């Protein structure tokens, strides 16, 4: 069976560490990006089955990343999950 690849996008390294530790234990292949720009680059190189996207990030926030992902890669059928600790952006979904 093919390994499921997950990309974690978060500007806080500790958050990546925490999420990656949990997910890797379940047998997923984990990649990380610390900002939206590099996440978008990585997506062009590797196919990810799931992207965990932090909303509050410098320069390019989660929405913009999500928007550009959906626009550029609509055919690839990505599903975006928002990690939003403050629950402030729920209404946007």
């Amino acid at each position: 069976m093919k390994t499921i690849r997950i990309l974690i996008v978060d500007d806080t390294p500790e958050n990546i560490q925490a999420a990656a530790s949990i997910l890797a234990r379940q047998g997923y292949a984990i990649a990380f990006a610390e900002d939206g720009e590099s996440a978008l680059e990585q997506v062009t190189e590797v196919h990810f089955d799931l992207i965990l996207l932090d909303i509050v990030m410098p320069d390019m926030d989660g929405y913009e990343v999500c928007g550009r992902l959906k626009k550029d890669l609509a055919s690839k059928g990505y599903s975006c999950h928002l990690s939003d600790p403050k629950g402030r952006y729920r209404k946007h979904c």
Partner: protein
Amino acid sequence: MFFWATRDKTYYYYLTFLTSLFLTHCAHDIPISYSCITPTALFICAIAFLHLAFSLWEKKKKVFQSIHFLLHLFVFLSTSYHLVSVPGVSSPTLPAVLAKSGLLIQGIAFSFLIVKNIRLTLRDKRDAQRLSTEEIQARKKAESANQAKSTFLANMSHDIRTPMNAVIGFSDLLSGMSLNEQQQSCVRAISSGGKNLLSLINDILDLSKIEAKKMDSHPEPIRIRTLLDEIRKIFSLKIKEKQLNLHIEVADTVPALIVLDGTQLRRILFNLIGNAVKFTRKGHIRIRVHSEQPENKEKVLLVLEVEDTGPGIRADLHEALFQPFQQDSTSSERNGGTGLGLAITRHLVELMNGDITLRNRVGGGSIFTARFVDVPVVHTSSPSPSPSSSSDDETYDAAPKKIAFENLTFLIADDLQEHRDLLKKILAGKRIQCIEADNGPQAVERTRQHRPDVVLLDIRMPGGDGSMAARQIRESSELCHTPIIAVTAFALQQDREKIMASGLFDGFLAKPILQADLFRELNRFFPSTEVKDEKKEMLAGAPLAEVPQNIALLIQQLETELFVLWQEVCRTKVFGDIGRFADKMRAIGQESSCTMLFNYGERLKTQSNNFAVEKMKTVLYAYPDLIEQLRAAQQNIEKKEEEIDENNTNTDR
């Protein structure tokens, strides 16, 4: 003369006008009909119309109030004139009498109106005055409430710091234990989180202390160049990580020793440079120090500039930035922080008799300029100690030395079991025996009983505080020489001074206790022996212990095939791939018996297994350095070979 126009009197003017008109006609004894529209009446009508219009205007524009008044006067006078000059009236008719009495009444009413308005106006003024005094009182009240809040917070310092003692202290302790890498990285996360929280708390407390006017300046002779060197050291890691350049330029005119509050100056620089590092993604940070008024050798104007090539700050936000809880709103979300740093910095600068300004750098970025006026200069010919630069040298020496003491007995007095445990655990394995006490009297009793070599005394304890216990120990002739170290969460500068000024204590330790601080304090009383960390030494000495024979081939491999792989994992950042790359490095290192390569792979593997993003990145990005080092080693070898060759040829001759 406009005082009477302060109220809405439109209706009254209108009524006055109509009455005047009516009464005039009555006085003329002319029946009110269409035929009575004489030029005079028309004139009055016109004026009345204007009057009305202006009355309505009055609500909008105060400028018209004077005109309004004149119009009113005119109406009054004209009607009076008509009354006086009624031609050919010999016997008083009823309407004429009515008109005359009416006009009289109107006159009286008008006078009343004026008087009333004067009174109203006066009252208005009084009210306004009273309001302003009320306002002042309210503001005073608010200010005192704010101050009370600040005082409260400043006093809360102790209670806020106490729980942090457990968090930071125990994680510090844990990190020294033999944990596996994953556990280590968890502990590091707790520790760094705790330290961040503590610095945040310290910021908030500082600001409240400043607001409560409890912050003082303690000028002392400092060496600004030494201070800047320290700061360079502190930021070197971050600067390197972000691949920035830090330039420190101190003009030759700046005196070697100046009298300023070193602690505060360090914090000012720390805040400004910290901000610069935080917001700059690319380019450099330049710190410029120069002084003016060199002809006056006693006092100088010291100017510190911190320049960065960050995004810069919009000019209209410059002032707000120095207010507490304000950040450039466009960036607060993304950079975190409380927005207190600059507010504190400004307060500190002002406290030191200076000012701070911000301007934008040409070509992007910002320049913060702090100017301190009348800074006394200490002439270097009279050597003066620099307490700030010498005493804190070790503060940033984060890794506590592995040391041991010679069979000592300690008394630990603290009302909280966990704090005693923490100290005990820090001291464990250092050949130190610990005796515990949980209140003051018990501490005195146990001291008498066990005669410890040192007493670590918590200041705030229920049932007899630390100062009282210390006094009792000091008063006893047989115990008075026992060193007593105050251990307390009252860590503010003035607390420390107060405690030390009491003369009861020989040392001071602020909670949260760090191992390094404790040992430094203990070292003042007892000599310690350094325990050699064998494992570390082995690693440090290892890299080129075995020089690989096929080094040229190895470098070639690293620069081509492996370099492509390295670039790929740097781009995709998949943990698993990085792990496999690390495995490969390890294998090659083993194969070619190159310890440096093997260690590199080992480190990378560990960090990627732990998902420790930051550390892994540091190792990963050090790959070019690795090649560089290998190449240097290769050159060394070649050099040596050449030398040997030369020697050989020499001996041949």
